[in-house]
């Protein structure tokens, strides 16, 4: 009897494991997509809401998260609080975060920040010249740039940026550079 039940048990156990694996796979936080060839990030020079100029090449030697967004874009709004939480962790590790607003004016963004307060710099790409030079087709799109100035990771659509796996993925770039 035991012998006849054993294959059934194994089958049931396998099925349970398969279900658990599928559920787990669905719940896994979506990591960042590695960019093939890791091309150099196109340089830009933009001012932020305080009028401070940010030139991307000045950040060379640091890991930089560059996010393209707009206030009218629902997933952009949704991910802002998570980006802020991530920034609070990343800033202590000398990682920079720059969020480039596409096509909107200061007043619109200022109004937006009343509901979505963030401390990382919000840069103004009012003419869309910068986004046009980057490999972006929809908002939000976010890139992670390594200390050598290369585009290493990409995320299309919003993410839970403060998920430990994502933070770890970003910090790993810094660790790798520090070892060299």
């Amino acid at each position, binding site marked *: 009897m035991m012998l006849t039940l054993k294959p059934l048990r194994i089958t049931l156990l396998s099925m349970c494991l398969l279900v658990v694996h599928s559920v787990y796979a669905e719940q896994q936080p*979506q990591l960042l997509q590695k960019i093939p060839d890791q091309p150099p990030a196109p340089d830009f020079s933009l001012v932020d809401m305080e009028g401070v100029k940010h030139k991307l090449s000045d950040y060379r030697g640091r890991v930089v998260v560059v996010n393209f967004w707009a206030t*009218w874009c629902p997933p952009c709004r949704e991910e802002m609080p998570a980006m802020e939480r991530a920034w609070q962790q990343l800033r202590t590790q000398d990682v920079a975060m720059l969020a480039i607003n596409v096509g909107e004016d200061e007043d619109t963004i200022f109004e937006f920040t009343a509901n979505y307060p963030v401390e990382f710099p919000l840069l103004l790409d009012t003419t869309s010249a910068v986004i046009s030079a980057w490999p972006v*087709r929809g908002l939000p799109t976010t890139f992670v740039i390594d200390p050598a100035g290369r585009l290493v990771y990409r995320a299309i*659509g919003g*993410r839970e940026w403060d998920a430990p796996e994502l933070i770890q993925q970003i910090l790993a770039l810094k660790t790798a550079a520090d070892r060299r």
Partner: protein
Amino acid sequence: MFLNTTAGRAERSAAQHRYGSRLGWYLLLSLLPGAAPVITLAGPVTTGAKPETGLRYWEWNDQGVLFRLTQRLPDQTRAYLLARGFDAGSADLAATRCMFQSMFKNTRSRGAPAVSINLEDWRVHAAGTEKRKQLLTREHWKQVWTQRGVSGAAAIAFEWSLLPTRQEYAPGDYNWGMTSYGLPPGTRFDLDFSWQREGKLFRGRLDGVECPADIHPEPQ
């Protein structure tokens, strides 16, 4: 805006509007030399209405792809465009060309292949006609706004508000954006959409999609 008169009924019947089934996909391969194999799917499509607005949606969720269209009232689009610097005539032109809020997502888990789309390959088949038309893409509207002298900032906002014409989605990637079908308010149409994964072309269909009517609901 409250259009709750139909919302509950539509929501309740959402599950009943599934047609096709996961097992029921019929398919096939077009074996033209050099052409990507084509797989035509009759996947599960869910329709319903947002309880808070009554606006209807059509959703495909199968084969690692989630594609959803939600109606946008012409007035929603008018208001959105006027707030971004469009003149009334241009805002009305776009608003009455059957706009939907759209979402396309690669729902597969990490490590799975990417999915790519090209809206120029999608076809709109309006009820009562034989003709199949293309969507009105970013490139189309860019020309229109140039001809009409719409300001740069307004045109930029509109361009980035539309679903990208071409995009590649890694697992977990998604875009939201408006799609425009070029049909008058109230028109029903079928949408043949497609995506590619690992060199294979997949085709799906949303039947009986309804462009929202040009109504002006009063708050209740």
